[in-house]
């Protein structure tokens, strides 16, 4: 149960990272997204890169991203993903949520004993 929750959280954040990455960099293929997340998170997220694909599928099914075939740097067929209008909206909403949550949590961590009395 515990592990499942953890992956759920991970996948939730992973989805958010995917959306943000696509928002910033536009159209990318799966490897590109994985690289980017790796770079930014500084290998903090040592997840298997493969777990990215089920997340991509989920986002596509929800309509947040769309995909099409294109040519990769190797000049081979690769699937390119990009954010949809819906996805942008979702990203905005989730960014807000996240910031709010982070702010609240942050305040809790900063709080001292006298603040709570």
């Amino acid at each position: 149960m515990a592990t499942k929750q953890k992956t759920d959280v991970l996948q939730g954040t992973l989805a958010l990272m995917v959306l943000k990455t696509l928002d910033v960099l536009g159209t990318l293929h799966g490897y590109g997204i994985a690289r980017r997340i790796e770079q930014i998170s500084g290998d903090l997220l040592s997840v298997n890169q493969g777990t990215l694909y089920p997340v991509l599928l989920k986002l596509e099914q929800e309509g947040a991203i769309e995909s099409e075939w294109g040519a990769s740097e190797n000049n081979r067929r690769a699937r390119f993903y990009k954010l949809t209008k819906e996805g942008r909206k979702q990203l905005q909403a989730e960014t807000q949520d996240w910031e709010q949550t982070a702010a609240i949590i942050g305040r809790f961590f900063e709080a001292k004993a006298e603040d709570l009395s």
Partner: protein
Amino acid sequence: MKSLRRFFARLTSFMARRAQDERLREEIEEHIALQTAENIRAGLSPVEARRQAMLKFGGVEAIKQDYRARRGLPFVENVVQDVRFALRSLRRTPGLTTFVIITLALGIGMTSATFSMVDALIFRPYPVPHPSAIVTLVSTTHDSPFDDFSYREYLDIRDKTNSYDGVIANADMEAVGFSSEPGATPRIKGGMMVSGNYFHVLGVEPRLGRGFREDEDQVPGRNPVVILGPDFWRHEFASNPSVLGKTILLNGAKFTVVGVAPDSFPGMLTFGHPDFYMPLAMAPVFSTNIQKNFFEDRDDRELTVQGRLKPGISLEQARNEVAVLAKNFEDEYPNVNRGRGAVVFTQFQARTTEDDNWKFGVIFLILALAVLLVACTNVAGLLLSRSRARAREIAVRLALGAGRLRLIRLLLTESMILATLGGLAGIAIGYGVVEWFHSKDSIVFATELPMAIPFQMDKRVLLACVGLSVLSAVLFGLAPALQSTRVDLVNALKSADVDVPGRKRLWGRNMLVIAQVSMSLMLLTASFLMARGFQHDLMQNTGFTKDHLLMTKFDPRLIQYNATQTQQFYKLLAERMRETPGVQSVALTQNIPLGNDDFDGVAFVPDGSQMAPDRSNFNSVMDTVDEGYFATMGIPILRGRTFLPTDTADSPRVVIVNEHFARHYWPSGDALGKHIRLDNSAGTPVEIVGVSQTIKYQNTQSPMDFVYMPLAQHPVARMVLMLRSTGDPLQLVQPVKDVVRSLDTNLPMLQTRPYEDFYVNQAVKGPRIAIDLVGTMGLVGLLLAVAGLYGLVAYNVSRRTREIGIRIALGAASSDVLRLVLGKGLVLVGVGTVIGLVLGFGLEQLMNSMLFDSGGVDVLAYAVVVPVMFLVTMLAAYVPARRATHIAPTQALRYE
């Protein structure tokens, strides 16, 4: 919204799952290729670069699985997968699969055919809207729990009760002479008189024309209208709608067709579909009791009364109401209603009280279910044995991380497929059996009206089949599935000898053997008992001569003879026949022994006997015969005399009673010369002038009271002519025809045939079919049990091959091995036999109470069945046990 969208996305991708799989594969490949290129740029060797890339990517298969789970409809996909897998593995063992399917088909087929019987006899609802609201009102007496009402009583019930949305009445379906135009020779069809509100209350809308109007059923003889049954309309009038308003002749009287009943309404009867319906008010044209006045006499009870319960009225309320009404009848008409009550029956109660046909159905169903159970245990045993062979496969699956539930589901899918195939084949068998019931020469009931065999494979029966298949799949599939997924992985993977005998596991297997032995013992006992019961019935001396008799039936009312003309006709007929060459003697009787028609009843009081206050009379069945009857039928008169030509309408009334009757009412003295009074203690005195031997009057009935009245004093319209021939009775057919034609060319002769033929059809064929059916079930049960036992013992031997090999190597003699293997089989068969005996004994009690009132225990049945059963099952165990003694230790130890 989001989840809905996801669902549709899943649905479409389920459809395109192949393309999707391909897409993922390609993406992964490209991902790894890109990562590899990156790693090479970072200075790794190509091989190492690829290895690192793959490590980084993670478990490809796990990702694929996760991807798939997200993508399509995993449940459906799994089921499809399971089915495909199951089919494949079943195909791999065609012999076993075929055997299992045949076994199941036998069980399900037998059960479905007998269920169709029980359904028709008990459960199938009336073919009307809201059938459960239709209840049957029944008159009850000390002697009969199911009696009819008279016309007057019906009117009172209809008018004085408040529980019903209408109360209807109908007479029995009767033979009616039908001709479509004047001058045509009448043909016999089945007509039924019904009350004017019949169709309206039942909620049956005629497909053409209209139902009866209430005013058409008010004045006797005023409204000759008729409504046709759907089949009759189709066959007789080629579905011609212009039949409305047409005049047809029924028993020679003109009737106007006013309606045609819809196809959905073949009638309310279990056996037989009325060809047409007439209002009760037209009774004078039809066969009511000519001794009584149908419209006036409160004891002329010929009507079945049914009502449609008002919504919200309970059966209890209706019962109380009609009980009060019956009490009022008793007070108001003590002469004809004393001791007579009334009850309200639901359809189920009515059908299970009216007659005993349903009991055969129920017993057959019990037996068929036993066959099904044996079949299921058999299949369970087989699957169990097979699961051993698959133990390693399953252990591997479990080790690779397959969920236990998933595996159980897989195995159950296999069972389900087997059950489905077995069920389909079973339905085919069921169809076969039902068809056989319908086929003309299996059951020829010698009725003048065609009898509708109500057994059919309708959707109710098919539904039951589906239910049975699923049930049996769970029955035979669950235990093996549970067990084979509960393996000790380490052991299972190490060797093939997975089957470390846990106590629990052996217990289950032993239960199977015991269940099989006991069930088939019960089946065999039942079939033996039934066969013996019928045989006993058949062997019983009927008490009269059956050969050299020609019978033919007349009903002069069909051509509108009045009572005088009718009696004149019979007198002349008997006289002329007596003069015919080849005729030894001539008799007329209202009913033949062992016939289809019910005997009339007679209510009487033995002269001088004191009746209990709540009883106004006794009842007996009776027959009306002429003076030639006893001689022609060869029924001995024990004391006194037979009827004589001097017993006329004007002479003192006389009766002949049977020995049973005489003993019953005059246990100490002689009945001869005593008097009985008809109807009640103030009735006409009648002298007993003879005591006849007790013969067999009805099928499967123990000896009963019987009264004969002379035709001259008790005129009856419908009589059977019995001719004793010197030669072949069929040679008399033409002479009879000639004589009848010389008397009246229009008079139809019904059921002309040698009595012996009739008897064989009637009394022998039906029981024989029952014996065949039950015998087949018993045999199938035994065969299945033998196969099952053999399989299980053989399986045990093969499981213990190594052990036995070691034992032999250590010096065990073959007799020791035999004892070892056989000993356990013996115990199991013994336990099974004891349980089977208990079950068989229970069933015998049930059968005794239901069918053959023989009482006591049929020792012979057990004396034959138990040893046979024991021998056969022991043989089934012995063969593989014997093989065990030939196990070569060297081979057995190398076995793996």
